[in-house]
């Protein structure tokens, strides 16, 4: 130090983890959510920009995507919030056994969602090469799928970690809590995406 220190206080008793906005990673995740949300917002803007050129939507010779699989996806992903909330609560209560037991449930749901997503792509009634409408619909669904996939991978890694001794550490509980927050974001995103992909062409 260049200047003589004048001691004004001590921070040794401060905690080393906090849930919510106190946590640094909470801010990091919010930052990435905003970035990814901007991707979606701009993809939506591109969708409406292309739609503005057309007489009908979907363009002539195209059919709107079949509702079944997208709606099923919506129902399952909304239901996934039940175990998600339970895990989040368990993280706040340091109930590690509950977290260990519930995480496979949410991982399983993620797997089911990925399978349903495969059927969704198959029921869009178009291929990405057909026209600009098809391309943007595929792009938006692809963008959302990357979120399901990355969160699924992330959750699997976290589950393995929670099965070890360090799962009892406060910062790992914060990780669990923030992983649940991110999953909320992923399913919240699905609602506008679902409306856009499945219902806007039916308006």
């Amino acid at each position, binding site marked *: 130090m*260049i200047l003589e220190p004048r*001691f004004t206080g001590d921070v*040794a008793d*401060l905690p080393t983890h906090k849930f919510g906005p106190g946590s640094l990673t909470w801010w990091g995740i919010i930052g990435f959510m905003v970035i990814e949300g901007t991707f979606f917002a701009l993809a939506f803007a591109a969708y409406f920009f*292309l739609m503005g050129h057309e007489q009908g939507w979907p363009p002539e010779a195209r059919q709107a995507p079949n509702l079944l699989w997208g709606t099923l996806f919506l129902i399952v992903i909304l239901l996934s919030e039940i175990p998600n909330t339970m895990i989040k609560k368990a993280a706040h209560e340091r109930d590690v056994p509950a977290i260990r037991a519930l995480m496979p449930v949410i991982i399983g749901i993620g797997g089911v969602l990925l399978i349903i997503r495969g059927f969704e792509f198959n029921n869009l009634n178009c291929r990405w090469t057909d026209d600009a409408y098809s391309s943007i619909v595929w792009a938006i669904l692809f963008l959302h799928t990357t979120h399901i996939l990355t969160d699924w991978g992330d959750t699997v890694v976290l589950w393995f970690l929670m099965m070890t001794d360090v799962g009892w550490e406060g910062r790992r509980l914060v990780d669990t809590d923030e992983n649940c927050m991110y999953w909320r974001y992923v399913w919240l995103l699905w609602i506008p995406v679902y409306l856009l992909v499945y219902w806007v062409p039916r308006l």
Partner: protein
Amino acid sequence: MTELERVRAEDQRLAKERQRIARDGPKLTGAKLEARLERTWRRPPGILGWLATVDHKEIGRRYIITALLFLALGGMLSLAMRLQLAQPDSNLISPQRYNELFTMHGSTMMFLFAVPVMEGVAVFIIPLMLGTRSTAFPRLNAFSYYMYLFGGLLLWVAFLLNIGPDIGWFAYTPLSGPQFSPGKRADIWAQMITFTEVSALAAAVVLICTILKARAPGMTLARMPLFAWAMLVVAVMIVFSMPSIALCSGMLISDRLVGTQFYNHYEHGDALLWQHLFWFFGHPEVYIIFLPATGFVSVITETFCRRPIFAYPVVVLALISTGILAFGLWVHHMFATGLPRVGYSFYTSASMTVAIPTGLQIFCWLATMWDGRPRFQVPMLYVVGFIVTFVIGGLSGVIIASVPLDLQLHDTYFIVAHFHYVLIGGAVFPLLGILTYWFPKITGRMMSETLGKIGFWMLFLGFQLAFFPMHFAGLLGMPRRVYTYPAGLGLELPNLLSTIGAFVVATAVGLFVVNGLYSLYRGAIAPPNPWEASTLEWATTSPPPPYNFAHVPVVDSKTPLWDAEGELPVVTGLRVDEKETLLTTVVAASPDLREPVPAASLWPLILSIAVAVFFISSIFSPWAVLFGSIPCAIAAAAWFWPKELNRNPEPVIT
């Protein structure tokens, strides 16, 4: 014993161990503390340690040096173009090569120099300025640098292999689409974008979290240095604007590689979709480059006028409002595409409106100089050069915000003159000023004042000689991006002057580099606070130790070192045997949390190599998206995974 009982017993044992952890404080201070912190914070030895470092100062330095190398490369391309244009009907460079040169020049300057250099300076200085020991997420910071480096290498290696892009720095469709740009040139451009955007977005998150959560206790938002404010605004702008170009270049790649139809008019796509998405990024980009420079100007003006910046709240509000208005201007790049009347009016008025906050900042700096006692040393000269040059560029900007004039001047050298005035005058001048200013902080030595002054005047005058005549060439109708021009149209003189000016500029920049290298070895040893500045980066040694500050400083004013009166208030209690830093609350900066700082790690480098393989191979095959992502997932998991799985008394990130 059940697991829960075992864990509780473990908790008690760890609580006892926690009491024994060594921490800084009145009993552990001075040389003894510094030696212990040095052992804890220093970089691991050897080349692997060098590659694994997460020290923000080393990463910031690498960012700055890499960006300056790209500046030199981009500058050489401009000299080649100026040689070609020195005479009419010149055949020195072929039209195809000329297309590559201006594409490489623009792309290099915008994506590989201007944005990264600002981020690099911020990554180096912001934690020091805020009085903290590290950036947030230092490994992400390292990853961001490597992504940037690989993106730059991709572009330049491709250029040297004669497959460099030739589609202009904004790569308009349909020219850049599969029909008119077969081959891989356009894909290389688009993938370079992906690299640099991932890098910039990662750096933006690092900076936002650092600025919001890692400020010294007492450094409320209202006391934050203006450069930190500028970088906060810029980082938020990056978050909202860079996804736009990543999205549209991703769509371009997929049009070219897998046959999507986003920009294909024949299949209901639209080439203008590209322009909208590109400029939704491209216009904020200008301010992403300019606003950090305004932060530099505020820093230099305050120090060299020896008074706090005039009307600090006005400058902060001007930064924020410029950041917001920058998102409402993109269509003024598209006036010539044909727009609804109301669009013309809206974007004209928005473009003129943005001059207001910028003007307010300029008046605040002038008022600071008026009321202060300016010392015209090299950094301050660059500020004065900035104000003169930027105001000229700003005024020509207001001129072309008007649609009828824009339609006349669109794609002429008038525009080239305008944006070089605002980008070089507005960003490069302050950058060279701030590099001179922070050179002692980075290296421990002063740059030569004499060489600096000669270099400044050469640069300032050479710049005017190079770019002012371009206004006239543009008014005479000389179009951009055309490799030559015919004799007899009155374009000979302005072009010759521009070429002479360009070489003067290049010599001046060369002189800056010579000055830097000379001073690195022979410069005067810098005193602790050589410019008598007010901010915290000068409260530690130059160059700073790996841990930045032995004790965490406390702040109770906007100008802590001017108000220090010989001693620096500090808080204590951070551990010294492991890397730890202090987090504070977002607005009031009250101590909030002790945060472990990650150890050096090779995983950011390994992940960035995996991502580079993924990105580059996806230029050639869509299957790369599938196979390339698997190593990335493994590397990301390994990055996150702790290297030891037993519990510690206090968290560490291994």
